[in-house]
């Protein structure tokens, strides 16, 4: 597994790297000392795993992670940050504390999923099986894209609907649309991107638009619905007829 160490302190990176030497399955392919460096390195090296310090100058670990699509597997590393620790525990994210206990590190590594598709070429498109990291206030999630039913824009934010959750995250719907697999995710209107796998029924709507009923139900037991604008309706029909 290719791993990246992201920590602002050189000694901390060195310490972790030396602990990882004992693990043959992990190959450290790079180190970054802040979020910007890390972002470039992730794009370049495509690591399977990152070790991520939360407390960093500039953007912190959570902010970095939210900007990485798809999100790699993550083991958080922190010294003592009550906020971060609470987030880890609440969301069952994997983390180790500094100074790192070698046994604890081994346990965290043991829990990692095996590398999924070793030969995947570098790609910019987000697949259904990819994970994205979402953070809304103290809560955070790793969500597999196929679980997301639709994205809904709210000002500068996007509300992500999956399972019974609907966190509001700082993202742009346009940027998301560029990255998402166009065969699965469809820009239904200015406000919505829907996951076609969740589409159940389609009905005509006013002004030549369409009303899409999803396989999911809202809290009243009614199917969730998303409107497709007139402009997109034709494309939508084309896409589905394929």
């Amino acid at each position, binding site marked *: 597994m290719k791993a990246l160490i992201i920590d602002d302190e050189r*000694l901390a990176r060195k310490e972790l790297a030396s602990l990882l030497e004992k693990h043959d399955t992990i190959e450290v392919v790079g180190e970054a000392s802040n979020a910007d460096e890390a972002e470039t390195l992730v794009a370049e090296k495509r690591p399977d795993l990152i070790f991520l310090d939360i407390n960093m*100058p500039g953007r912190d670990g959570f902010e970095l992670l939210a900007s990485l699509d798809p999100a790699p597997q993550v083991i958080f590393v922190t010294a003592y940050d009550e906020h971060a620790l609470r987030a880890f525990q609440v969301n069952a994210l994997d983390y180790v504390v500094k100074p790192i206990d070698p046994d604890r590190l081994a346990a965290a590594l043991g829990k990692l999923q095996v590398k999924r598709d070793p030969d995947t070429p570098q790609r910019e498109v987000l697949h259904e099986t990819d994970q994205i990291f979402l953070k809304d206030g103290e809560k955070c999630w790793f969500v597999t894209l196929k679980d997301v039913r639709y994205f809904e824009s709210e000002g500068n934010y996007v509300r992500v609907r999956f399972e019974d959750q609907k966190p509001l995250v700082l993202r742009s719907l346009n940027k998301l649309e560029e990255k998402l697999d166009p065969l699965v995710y469809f820009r239904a209107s200015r406000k919505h991107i829907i996951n076609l796998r969740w589409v159940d029924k389609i009905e005509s709507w006013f002004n030549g638009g369409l009303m899409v009923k999803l396989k999911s139900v809202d809290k009243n037991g009614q199917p969730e619905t998303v409107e497709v604008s007139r402009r997109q309706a034709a494309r939508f029909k084309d896409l589905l007829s394929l």
Partner: protein
Amino acid sequence: MRARTIYWGTQLLAWALLVSVIGLYLYQDRSLSPDQIKVLVLFYFTGLGISHWFRHVIIRNGWLERDLGFVLPRLSLVALLLSIVAFLLMAVVHDSFFPGYAPLLVADPLAILLNTINWTVLLFIWSLGYFAYVYFIRSRREEIRNLRLETASRDNQLNTLRAQMNPHFMFNALNGIRALVDEDPEKAKRAITQLSAILRNAMATVKRGVVPLGEEIDIVKAYLELEHMRFEERLRYTFDVPVELEREQVPPMLLQTLVENAVRHGIAPLVNGGDLHIIARRTPEGLDLVVRNTGRYTPGEVRGNGIGLKNTRKRLAMIYGGLARFEIVNVEGCVESRVHVPLRTEAVLTDPS
């Protein structure tokens, strides 16, 4: 809910016990007739009812909160009044439901008097028992409450200590030392000594009022060297403290708190790090301590910041009254934390006594 169960349990049992003892006594005396048994049952329920009424009177008048000197005469009086009620009640029930038996309501003043006195004594003893029971329960509750309070105050002390130890710094330093053990063992040893000095100082500080500025500077130096181990070239610092000021007295951990704040909120968030200057100056009125760091101060912006500053203000006010000053200002792209404390000698001079 539980107290109620205990009360009723005790109440039912105690009266049952009393009735059994009387029954047993009569039985030995060979005078326990069916008639007597009926009277005993009647007595049992009258006792229960009347004593429960007694409890109601005690609670409603708030006598449980008064002292015994106030309560005892009132208890006797109520016991007397209730005993009359008890006697009348028992007699009426007895005479109307058990016809053919010797009536209790007879015009024999002596019998009535004896019966009433019996009831009075009985009810009075009952009320004493009730008070003892309530006092017992309350003292237990008080004990538990005191234990809780003690734990809370201990938690509080622990929190203060934890804040002083700055766990974020501590664990990061330890992590750095772990890496240094391989890279530079000599440096690792020095770092352990410095960390010990800081820990020892944090623990001792609680007890000391003032320390020589020189000692405080030593701790700040140890702290900064450790932070430098972590931040490396991102943290650059200088001291400008004239030697002759090293013996001046300052509150312990005062300068240290300001420097920690400057590193944590000023320099740590900067990707390229920053500079830190620690300056001490003698002024006509006293001693100026200045910590200047790269960055910008926006009040209320940084989380966790408020406590350290508030504590600093509070401590200064406690030690010097209105004679000390503390401010944080932005100057030419830097943040300056400035403390002015009166020199000891001058503090005494300005004190009219």
